[in-house]
Each structure stands twice: as C-alpha cells, then as structure tokens.
C-alpha cells in the first residue's frame, strides 16, 4: 500500500494507529487525522462523482468549504449520516464511511456517460428537459435522477443519539481561534469581560498553528511557536471559556447565536455510548468579535476538477499539519504569493514542485526565497488543460498575452501527480451578513468586506480583508481596543516580519484557445456548474445573481457555494460588463454548515416532544381501558372500549347508556376563568353577545363570544357565584386564547373596569353526570342537598360538601339530558370520580369519552366551536340569533354583525342533514352540491359533524350550506368518490326539541 505520510508532526500521534473502513475497504490512519488526511496518506484522492456529469472528483480542501469529499457515515438504519465532509471528520477507530453520489461505485458508474453527452446538459437542463412530457416525471425522470445522483441516505429509524441544548450569556463572544481571534479573546478576558472563544477545529490556532516558514516571524520566533505561547497564556485566563469543535451555525439579531459543539463524533464507537453527541449552544453576547478567517479560492480553467487538484493552502496543511503529501511531483498554479509558502514547505520535505504564476513578475522576499531554493517558476503563464481520468497526470500551460485576455506561444506540457490552485483569498463574511451586516467590495483584490461594524459587532483578521500577519495583528489590536473601549498594550512591542507580498493578478475565467463551449471550466464542483453555464444563463436573459444561481444551481449544493460564489459573480460581472461590487451577493443563510435534526431538537423527543396535560382522573381512565384523544395539550378519554369493541360499537353503547340511564364524563379540561371585581357583570356584558346584568346569583348562563369581526370565537357556561364573582368556562382548546383576549381588552381598551381574571382550569376537576338517573346518583353523593327542580333547577348552581370537601355543582347540560357538573379541588378529583362511579353502579353509570359527548350534543344540535364553526361563522349563520342581545349598546363584535358582508343572505349557514338511507353515515368535510350534472359543480358547503345516532336509530349530520336557513326540506347531494349520497336539509335539533328530558 502506498504511503504518502512523509514526516512526523506534533498533531499526529503515530503511536495510536486507527483502522477505518472506506467504501468497504479497511485502511489505517492515526489519531489526529481527519478522514481526508488519512485517505490522502493512503494515496486516495478519488472520493466521489460529480452530481451532473459523474466526473471523478477528489479531495479539494481541508475544511468546511469541501465540495467533493462528501461521505455517508455508518450504515445502520438508525445511525447513518449523509453529507459529512471528510475534511472535517476526525478519524476514529471503527469509522465506516462511504463515498456519496457514485452509484454503483466510485470507480465505475453509469452516470459517467453524462460526461460524454455533456453538450446536451446545459444550464437549466433539468428545468428544460424534464418538464416534458409531464407524465414522464414521476415514472422516468425522477427515479433515474434519484438513483444516479445520490444525495446520501437518511436514517430510516429514530436517531438513538442524545443531543443537548444550553443557554449562555457572555460579555464578549469571539468566533474563530486563529491569530486575530486569540488576540481578541485575550484582550477581552484580561480586561474583565466574561468571554467565550469558539473554534470549529479540534485545536486553536487556525492556519498559523502549523506555519513553519523561517521568513514569517513574530518576536523572532516562528509564528506558530509564538502563537502556541499565546494559546498557553489565554488558557490561564479565568474570565475566558474556550470551546473547540464548536461551530457557529447561525447569527441572529440582538447578538443571539446558535453554536453546535461536537462532543463524541471523534470518539471510537464504544466510547460514544450514553454520551451527549452534540450540544446546541444558544448564546446571547453583549458584543461579538467575528474572526472567521478566509478560504482560498480555486482557479477556473479547463478541466480544473480532476482528482489530485487541490487548493494550494490545503496541500500545505496536509503536509505541515498531518505530515501527508498530496503528491510526489506537484505543480502549484497561483495568482498571488500564498502558493509560495506551500512550495517552500514542500521543497523542504523533499517534494519536487514547480510554480505557474499568472503574474508577470513579483518580487517579495518569499518569492526570492523560492527562487534561491531553485524552485522553477513560470511567470505570466496559465494552465490551459489537465489530463488523467481518475487522477491528474499532466497538464498544459501557455503564456498569457499582455492584457491577460488570451494565450500566446506554444503549449508546454508538464507532468505531475498533483496540482495546487491558489486564486487568492475570500473573507468569510457569512457571520457578518447573517447578522444583517452589509458588504463593501474592494477592487484591488476583488473581495467583499464587512461594510460597517456596529457597536456590538466587529470583524477582525482575514475575514475583514487583512491578509498579512502584520496587518492582522496591528489592526486587530487597534480595533479591539476601540470596540471594547480599553487600552491594552500587550502587543505594542510585538515585532512582526512577514515576507509575503500582497499583489495579485485576478482573472475570474482564465483564457484558453479552445472555445468555451468545448471546455469544462468548473465553478461549482458539487453541483457541476461551469463557466459556460453561467454565460448561457446570461445569454438567455438572466441578470439577477439570485436568478443565475437558481438557474445554473451554482452555490446551491450542501457547501452553499463557499468556493464557487465569487467566481460566479466575477464571471457574470465580466460578461455583463458591470462592476462586480454593484451586483451584490447572494444571501448567506444559516446554517453555515449542515446541522442534524437531532441537534436542533435536543431533548425534545419522545415523551418530551410536547407538554402533556392530564386530569386528576387520568389514571382511572388508563386503568379502564380508555382510548385517548389529544385536545390541545390535554389527553382526553375518547371512548372506553369493552370486550374488544371497536370505536363505533363503544360509542353507540356509551351514547345509549347516557340517555337510557346515566353517563359520566371527565370535563376537567374545560377552561375555567375566575372573574371578580365590582365591574364583573359589565365586563361580561361587553365580551358576550347576550346580557348578564340580570343573571341572579347562583344561576348559570350560556354565552357566545365573538371576535371584533363578528365571527364566533368561543362559547361556554358562566356561573354567577356571588354579586361580584363569576366562574366562566371556555372550550378546552380555547382556554388560553380566551384568557389572553380578555386580558388584552381589560388592559388596553377598558382599563377603567374593576375586574380581575384568574385562570383556574387546573385548580378544579370536574365530573359531569348526565341521564335520567343522574339525580338519583347525585342524591347518593349529596344526601343533604335538595335536588328538586324547584330548589335546583336547570342552569343553576349549588355548593355542598363531599366528605367535608367543598364542591361546586352546576346543573347544566351539553347533552340535553338532566345533567350535573361536580367541581372539586383538583387533588380530590380522582376520589370524586371513583365515588361517582361507585354511587352510579346500580344505575349502570357509564363512563363516556369525547366521541360520545360529540354525538350526544349533535343529537341536540349544540355546536362545537372549531368543528361546526371555522372563524367565518356569525351567530346568525349558526341560527343562534336568539343569543345576540338587541338591547345592549355594545359588545365585542356587535358592529360587525351588520356589515354588508355579514348580513348577506347567501352566507354559509348551519343546517341539519338527514341521509335518505338512514344507515348511511356522511363523511365530515364532504362537499355538498345540489346538482352534479352542470360543470363546474357549484359547491354549496360541507359537512361539519356526522354520526350514527343510536337513540334515533339513524344517521344525523350538521353542515354549513349556502343560504341553508331557507332550505329546510330541500334535497341535496353529497358526491363521494364512487357514489352520490342523497340528503335532505333538516332542523339542527334532532332529538327532544321541547327540552323535556332536561327536567324529566
């Protein structure tokens, strides 16, 4: 096996060998490696196929910007992760990774054919081709695309890993632990700012930490040595917290940031167990220092995408940090001085290399050093083509013309096994723009820079466009002193020697003799878009950068165009003949790198997914086999199946029992609002449609509450407990909103009213007993209470004791039966329920759930707000005009009841429906029409509630129908998938219209 690990470094522990699997084959690396460095050490460059043409692709970079080395980690159904960048993944024992996007395998695959038919796949190809014929999409195109363009696999079972969230507050947050970040953190912490420094890598130090060029020195030391000292020092600062392996995912307003900390991803399988995998930090910082650095730009020339072509600086890092050389015969292609650092490093390790430099000449100390080492430099030359299928084996260069627009002279062919590209540096302004910051364009070196720094946020170092060490340190110190209003002198005497020059010859699309149409000059490696695609998009009329991006898909892959956006912009600007700064950039959106859902969700999984509210009687319901229904956050018994009953049978039995003898419902979840104060009656007058002043103490009244737009909002029974004391009930789901609405009016519109509102929903448990035998059961529970209709009539309220515990008893009914609601302090709710059940045994007291409750009330035509209403129903639409006071001067929504729209006669109105076949049960939500022949069919309304009534032995339904009030007796049709159901419009009350049962 080849070994490209050519020297020892302090970051690789050669005593700790790590075995891992890549595409099924076992390899070895060392602790400290990333998957990418370990692959390169094994001589593996080829890691995937490109998205569109399926061209072989190799590792390009050493960080978050990596477009090609995208892997699938693990293969278990519950533990597999796609889109992981091999350049960031730390190697661990037992790691299993496979290349993505290369079915059936990386060395040979079907999609490779696309490479040869590529003239047929221009920009917008997917939009243009696969649009037609439409029927081909689902059956032909989509499966094909999905199969050959692997975007990784998601796990198919729940993620077993543990994720965590944590909130923290800091005076200063520093993002990025390179030179500028370390200086900023040190200055802040030493001046009494509680500071957090985060860096996405395993260790601090950025790209300076492995720098070993003798001609770049700080205080007479190698810059890396100097920086190590600084890191030692900041680790001693008590005011400073340092989080490595932590990357900022999002930067929101008011300095609120999300950071992802990797805790176990680098550990061997057995050590991951039972540990938190990732933690999402929710950081609120008074001030934020952005020191995120910059990434090297590739160069855009023909066939610039072959495996073995990397960013020059990445070659340097693989060499000096990981001890791995990316080749044995390397060519560096550059437009600036950075590649010379790589060249000198390679030379020192005995790796043969030559430089192709776009610049006519350059005379920095660094270049002189390279020349004196005898490194061959081709100035004023450009790479025009590369060769080699699975890996680069040679390339051609040509001389540039005077203006740089074309090539001149003869081709020179050079052999190589690796090519480094350096197109200069792009400041990482993502954080700045995510927070809302604007950008400026600097023409000299064609970079976007943070425009202005606000008082609570600043960018320093190379993300601010300062690329040489001297500038980075000086400017960072000055800016931080000003930003934090401090006077730190630590770096005043720091002596910096930087032999690197700053000049650069920027050409976005490099010239070539071959027509553009016949070249493959890649801009976006991951999404396979070329310079040609960009130009075609412009030719077809696209101008906005956002449009060009979407049409060509440039910058839309998982790397979000970290390497490609600038070139796309540059080529657009050049082609359209506009200044690059005027184009703007595409929007940088969070997250900076992909996040797993687990990290976002944290602990809120399984039973912690949502808050669950249970009544005091809940355990009894569970023990008695209840099926539950979620109503808001509440768990409510839905029905209680007995002896293997299905839902229908259980509901029929419960409904019949409630009307024949007695039923009991847990009504604890209804919202309860305690209303007190000398203006309580006036307040109720204003919030309900009906009148309240005359309600006697000890009496109950049903109320309908509207929105200001006149539409029904909530309903419920309110009891007058004493002169200035009411207890309002609301629907279960509406409780919180009703309280909020009432508080809003009290605080903002009627602050003069003396009214106090308290939510007491959880304070009381409620057992509701109904049916002809309910009075007898009540009598057993409350033997001293006079239950006669004279003393305790319908819609009234009494207080009594049950075993010395106070109970509030309302005789109110939602079923049409004689009915009592017993309220008791919640802690006694379970006992109350059991006592009721015990007392009711001889009367076949049957517990019933929400489904039976809905059926019983539908028999009586009582509405359920939210089921029979949908925010567009007025009281009149519900045929409930009787509840709207004509006398009251005002109430919420009154004025809206006679707007031109609300008085329309053809509004949808609530009606009853009876099916011609009494056994036919309608589907809730089904459309209602009067004629199925004329097309388009005129929709008149829909079914809102539908049941089979065991008490009437027929199907009943409620519906909203246009002009329904006037349609009683009329025939209508419910068209279903395979039949039409004939119905007749009826009254909404199906049972006991005279309310005889209430007092039976």
């Amino acid at each position, binding site marked *: 096996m080849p070994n490209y690990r050519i020297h020892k470094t302090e970051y690789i522990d050669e005593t700790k060998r790590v075995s891992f699997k890549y595409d099924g084959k076992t390899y070895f690396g060392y602790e400290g490696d990333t998957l990418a460095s370990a692959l390169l050490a094994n001589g593996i460059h080829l890691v995937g196929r490109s998205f569109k043409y399926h061209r072989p692709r190799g590792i390009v970079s050493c960080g978050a910007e990596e477009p090609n080395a995208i892997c699938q980690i693990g293969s278990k159904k519950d533990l597999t992760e796609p889109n992981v960048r091999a350049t960031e993944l730390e190697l661990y024992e037992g790691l299993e990774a496979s290349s993505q996007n290369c079915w059936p395998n990386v060395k040979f695959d079907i999609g490779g054919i696309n490479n040869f038919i590529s003239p047929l796949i221009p920009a917008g190809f997917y939009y243009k081709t696969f649009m037609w014929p439409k029927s081909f999409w689902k059956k032909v195109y989509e499966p094909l695309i999905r199969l050959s363009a692997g975007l990784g696999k998601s796990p198919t079972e729940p993620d077993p890993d543990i994720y965590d969230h944590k909130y923290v507050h800091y005076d200063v947050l520093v993002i990025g632990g390179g030179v500028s970040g370390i200086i900023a953190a040190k200055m802040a912490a030493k001046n009494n700012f509680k500071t957090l420094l985060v860096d996405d890598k395993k260790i601090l130090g950025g790209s300076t930490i492995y720098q070993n060029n003798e001609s770049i020195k700080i205080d007479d030391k190698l810059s890396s040595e100097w920086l190590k000292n600084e890191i030692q020092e900041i680790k001693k600062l008590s005011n400073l917290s340092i989080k490595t392996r932590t990357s900022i995912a999002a930067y929101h307003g*008011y300095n609120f940031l999300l950071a992802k900390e990797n805790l176990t991803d680098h550990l061997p399988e057995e050590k991951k167990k039972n540990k938190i995998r990732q933690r999402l930090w929710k950081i*609120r910082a008074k001030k934020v220092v952005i020191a995120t650095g910059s990434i090297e730009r590739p160069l855009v020339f023909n066939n610039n995408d072959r495996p073995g072509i990397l960013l020059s600086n990445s070659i340097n890092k693989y060499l000096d940090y990981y001890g791995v050389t990316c080749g044995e015969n390397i060519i560096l292609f550059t437009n600036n001085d950075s590649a010379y650092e790589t060249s000198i490093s390679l030379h020192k390790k005995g790796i043969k290399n030559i430089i192709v430099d776009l610049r006519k000449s350059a005379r920095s100390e660094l270049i002189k050093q390279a020349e004196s080492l005898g490194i061959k430099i081709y100035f004023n030359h450009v790479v025009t083509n590369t060769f080699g299928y699975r890996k680069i084996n040679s390339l051609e260069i040509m001389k540039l013309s005077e203006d740089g627009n074309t090539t001149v002279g003869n081709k020179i062919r050079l052999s190589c096994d690796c090519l480094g590209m350096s197109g200069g540096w792009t400041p990482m302004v993502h954080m700045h723009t995510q927070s809302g910051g604007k950008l400026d364009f600097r023409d000299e070196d064609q970079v976007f820079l943070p425009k202005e720094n606000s008082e609570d946020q600043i960018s320093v170092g190379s993300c601010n466009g300062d690329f040489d060490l001297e500038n980075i340190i000086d400017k960072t110190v000055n800016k931080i002193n000003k930003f934090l209003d401090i006077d730190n002198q630590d770096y005043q005497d720091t002596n910096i020697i930087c032999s690197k020059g700053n000049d650069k010859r920027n050409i976005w699309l490099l010239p070539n003799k071959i027509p553009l149409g016949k070249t493959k000059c890649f801009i976006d490696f991951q999404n396979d878009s070329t310079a040609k695609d960009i130009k075609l998009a412009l030719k077809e009329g696209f101008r906005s950068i956002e449009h060009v991006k979407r049409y060509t898909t440039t910058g839309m892959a998982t790397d979000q165009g970290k390497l490609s956006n600038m070139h796309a912009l540059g080529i657009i600007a050049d082609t359209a003949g506009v200044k690059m700064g005027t184009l703007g950039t595409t929007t940088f959106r969070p997250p900076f790198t992909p996040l797993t859902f687990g990290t976002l969700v944290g602990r809120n999984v399984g039973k912690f997914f949502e808050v669950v509210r249970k009544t005091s009687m809940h355990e009894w319901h569970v023990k008695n086999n209840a099926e539950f229904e979620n109503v808001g956050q509440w768990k409510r018994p839905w029905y209680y199946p007995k002896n293997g009953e299905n839902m229908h049978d259980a509901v029929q039995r419960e409904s019949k029992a409630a009307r024949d003898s007695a039923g009991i419902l847990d009504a604890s979840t209804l919202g309860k609002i305690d209303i007190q104060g000398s203006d309580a009656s006036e307040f109720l007058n204003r919030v309900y449609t009906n009148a309240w002043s005359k309600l006697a103490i000890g009496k109950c009244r049903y109320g309908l509450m509207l929105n200001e737009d006149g539409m029904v909002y909530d309903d419920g029974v309110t009891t007058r407990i004493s002169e200035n004391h009411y207890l309002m009930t609301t629907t279960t789901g509406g409780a919180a909103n009703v309280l909020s609405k009432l508080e809003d009016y009290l605080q903002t519109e009627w602050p003069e009213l003396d009214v106090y509102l308290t939510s007491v929903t959880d304070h009381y448990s409620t057992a509701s007993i109904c049916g002809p035998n309910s009075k007898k059961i009540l009598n057993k529970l409350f033997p001293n209470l006079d239950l006669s209709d004279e003393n305790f009539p319908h819609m009234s309220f009494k207080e009594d004791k049950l075993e010395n515990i106070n109970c509030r008893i309302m005789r109110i009914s939602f079923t049409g039966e004689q009915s009592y609601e017993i309220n008791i302090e919640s802690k006694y709710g379970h006992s109350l329920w059991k006592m009721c059940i015990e007392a009711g045994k001889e009367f076949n007291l049957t517990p019933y759930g929400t489904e039976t409750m809905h059926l019983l009330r539908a028999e009586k035509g009582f509405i359920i707000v939210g089921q029979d209403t949908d925010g567009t129903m007025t009281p009149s639409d519900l045929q409930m005009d009787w509840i709207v006071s004509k006398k009251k001067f005002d109430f919420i929504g009154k004025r809206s009841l006679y*707007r031109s729209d609300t008085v329309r006669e053809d509004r949808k109105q609530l009606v009853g429906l009876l099916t011609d076949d009494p056994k036919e049960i309608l589907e809730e939500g089904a459309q209602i029409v009067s004629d199925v022949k004329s097309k388009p069919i005129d929709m008149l309304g829909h079914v809102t509630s539908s049941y089979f009534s065991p008490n009437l032995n027929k199907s009943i339904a409620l519906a909203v129908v246009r002009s329904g009030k006037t349609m009683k007796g009329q025939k209508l049709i419910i068209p279903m998938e395979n039949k039409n159901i004939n119905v007749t419009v009826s009254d909404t009350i199906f049972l006991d219209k005279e309310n005889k049962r209430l007092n039976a």
Partner: protein
Amino acid sequence: MFLINCPFCGERDQSEFSSGGEAHIVRPKQPTELSDDEWAEYLFMRKNIKGIQFERWNHVHGCRKWFNVVRDTSNDKILSVYKMGEKPPVNYK
C-alpha cells in the same frame, strides 16, 4: 431573537413575548355610530411600515402585561418601550 425590555420586568428574550400588531388603534367608543367604511378602517386597516413602527407587545410568558414598543422594522432595533396609556415618544414620529 429580540431582547425586549418589558417595562415591568426588564430585559427578556423575545420567546417570552407575543406581538399584538400596530399600537394606538383605539376601539371606537360608539361603534354603532360608524359607517361600514369607518368600522372597516378600525377593524382591518394596518400600516405595516418599513421603518419606525409603533407596536403592541404582551409579556405573555412573564407578567402578562401589554405595553408599547417603538421598533425599526428595517433592522429590528427596538428604540423605545412604554406602558399602555403612556404617550408615545414624540421624537420617532
């Protein structure tokens, strides 16, 4: 995520609050006197300004008090906070 300075509790995270739309829309004292258009103006019409906007906020997961906020909707900066019933600061008109 804003930080909102509740006039009763102090600075809190936005997640504790709910927004109540435009401020200083007074419910008419005699709605029945209004024409359909006048009532619609009160009921439906909101400015939705890009720039300085006066808004109602409720500290719903805190003291549950409603109060007013002056916010620049173009950059989400909160410029002023004041209680219900207090006069809006004049320098933002």
